[in-house]
């Protein structure tokens, strides 16, 4: 046992030495905690319950033993859906924003009021990659939304064809009463294996309304992404979140929602479609720290070919979070015997006057429905496509903005 640990630490130490450390904007105590967590916990191994089905240690050793950081690139041919956009990742922070949005990057002199939020929700003490991002990421962008936006803000992660490693940190603050929609997507020019480690902290003030849509699709299947996200919701805030994960070698999302004050509504929906040998792992935590709030989760997962699609949904209801109403459901379709699906709900409830329900179903496509469609002259593949679209329609339909719906539909391959 001791020998393994030592070997593992040797790899980690050598690995970390390749990452430049000029982190400036992280508060000292947060940085210390993050580095301590990295040293103590190490890279999640096969025995790590949270990374079950995601062999992250062997992925790093196999593909990313040598780290090359991309130099910043000009952004080429990015598919920008909205006039309001910010490009991050391997790019100069290109942006075009309307009034109502203030943006700061690590190069700017960032006011202290923003820095106070960095690491506030202690993701760096829960997940190795959140700690890695906190301890070793020099790229920070702060997006402060001060007024209701007329149109969505498009946040684009640009991944270039140089290097194989990058990290990005995002802090978003949505002011009181403000309504905003954010589309987060990824633009790739890379053909090589690429490791992208992101961390986003999103603060929603009282009575704010945020619709956040993250669309992950990498047609070349070369991206390995770990994405840590934390939403913090103050009184009467409304959050709608859509997680769409399509092609790519690895999409791992740790999505955490802190319900800090009463009368909050958090609606989380997800669609994951695993193809080829992709691994998609959605790890959600809805943390009811305060009562009289409502959380709703619906995740639809499809696993085809040799893919692995995992959903882990954790709900915590604190002792004083009375009158909480929490719902979670995951629906799963296995299209191929070589694919793997795994869905696990986890509930921890310490309050006694709450309503919590969860469910999970797994199956294959309905053979009778397939046959019925075929007897009407519809090709097997088209019949399958119709049934799959019917399966996940309610996830996409929920998105009010037609341009975003179209952006997603265009990228779905069945």
């Amino acid at each position, binding site marked *: 046992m001791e020998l393994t640990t030592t070997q593992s630490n040797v790899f980690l130490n050598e690995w970390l030495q390749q990452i430049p450390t000029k982190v400036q904007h992280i508060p000292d105590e947060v940085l210390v905690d993050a580095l301590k967590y990295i040293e103590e916990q190490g890279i999640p191994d096969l025995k790590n319950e949270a990374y079950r089905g995601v062999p992250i240690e062997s992925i790093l050793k196999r593909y990313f033993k040598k780290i090359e950081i991309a130099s910043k690139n000009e952004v080429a041919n990015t598919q920008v859906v909205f006039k309001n956009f910010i490009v991050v990742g391997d790019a100069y922070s290109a942006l075009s924003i309307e009034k109502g949005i203030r943006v700061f990057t690590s190069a700017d002199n960032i006011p202290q009021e923003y820095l106070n939020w960095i690491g506030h929700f202690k993701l760096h003490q829960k997940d190795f990659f959140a700690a890695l991002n906190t301890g070793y990421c020099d790229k920070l962008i702060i997006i402060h939304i001060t007024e209701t936006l007329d149109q969505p803000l498009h946040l684009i992660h640009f991944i270039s064809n140089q290097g194989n490693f990058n990290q990005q940190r995002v802090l978003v603050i949505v002011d009181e009463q403000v309504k905003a929609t954010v589309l987060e997507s990824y633009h790739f020019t890379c053909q090589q294996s690429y490791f992208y480690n992101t961390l986003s902290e999103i603060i929603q003030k009282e009575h704010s309304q945020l619709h956040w849509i993250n669309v992950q699709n990498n047609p070349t299947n070369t991206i390995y992404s770990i994405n840590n996200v934390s939403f913090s919701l103050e009184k009467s805030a409304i959050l709608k979140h859509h997680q769409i994960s399509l092609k790519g070698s690895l999409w791992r999302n740790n999505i955490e929602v802190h319900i800090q004050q009463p009368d909050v509504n958090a609606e989380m929906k997800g669609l994951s479609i695993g193809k080829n040998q992709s691994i998609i792992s959605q790890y959600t935590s809805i943390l009811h720290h305060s009562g009289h709030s409502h959380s709703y989760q619906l995740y639809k997962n499809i696993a085809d070919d040799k893919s692995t699609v995992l959903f882990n949904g954790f709900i915590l209801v604190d002792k004083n979070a009375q009158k909480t109403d929490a719902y979670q459901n995951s629906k799963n379709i296995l299209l191929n015997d070589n694919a793997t699906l795994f869905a696990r709900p986890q509930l921890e409830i310490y309050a006694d006057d709450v309503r919590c329900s969860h469910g999970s179903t797994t199956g294959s496509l*309905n053979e009778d429905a397939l*046959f*019925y469609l*075929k*007897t009407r*002259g519809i*090709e097997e593949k088209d019949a399958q496509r*119709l049934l799959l679209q*019917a*399966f996940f329609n309610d996830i996409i339909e929920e998105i009010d903005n037609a341009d975003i719906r179209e952006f997603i539909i265009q990228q779905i391959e069945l």
Partner: protein
Amino acid sequence: MTPLLSIKNLHVTVDGNEILKGIDLEINKGEIHAIMGPNGSGKSTLSYVLAGKDGYEVTEGEIIFNGKNLLELSPEDRAREGIFLAFQYPVEIPGVNNIQFLRTALNSIRQYKGLEPIDASEFLKLVKEKQKLLDLPANLINRSLNDGFSGGEKKKNEIFQLSILNPLLAILDETDSGLDIDALKVVANGVNHYHNKENAVLVITHYQRLLDYIVPDFVHILYKGKIIKSGDKSLALELEKSGYDAYKVETTN
């Protein structure tokens, strides 16, 4: 004249049990045939074999449809060649829009025949015409396919699809089951409207009731996997009076 459908010495096994034990049947264009028989006689098996459902193994015999070996075709190609099965239990498919599904089906059949996809306004016109014929409310046909439909609505929707896809052979598998008399008349009217001298209808039923409205040229009695007697429409009336037992005895002797 070459028959539209020719079934010769058809033997079919399901899960190792022989259900059809040598069926011979010929249907010409312009004809209406009825197959009657008690529960378990193999009526539904025959309709599923014609439509191409998995799990029905043909161990002997052949089916020639419009000059083609039907047993070599996939279910979708059979439909494109002109076979239509109105299901006894139409499948509910939530999330698949009834009209979009029908347009996909129609265009898929047209493409097979080398025709251009139907244009939107022409399709809409067709839908309106048939919808009226079958007394189907507009909100129903715009819903998810059969989702939450009543038994009668499902059967009407089957005949609605039949009238839009306009196949060469319509197989009605117990379309009368679960229908009240008014719905029965509407369904029969739809079938009669579809029927002409260029196509054919195969009605599979327990009861003679439907045959008052869809009048067959030929009636066949199916019993224990064999057609034991064929005749004209008077056979159905006879059967209604005497029950199946009289014919069972006839075969034993």
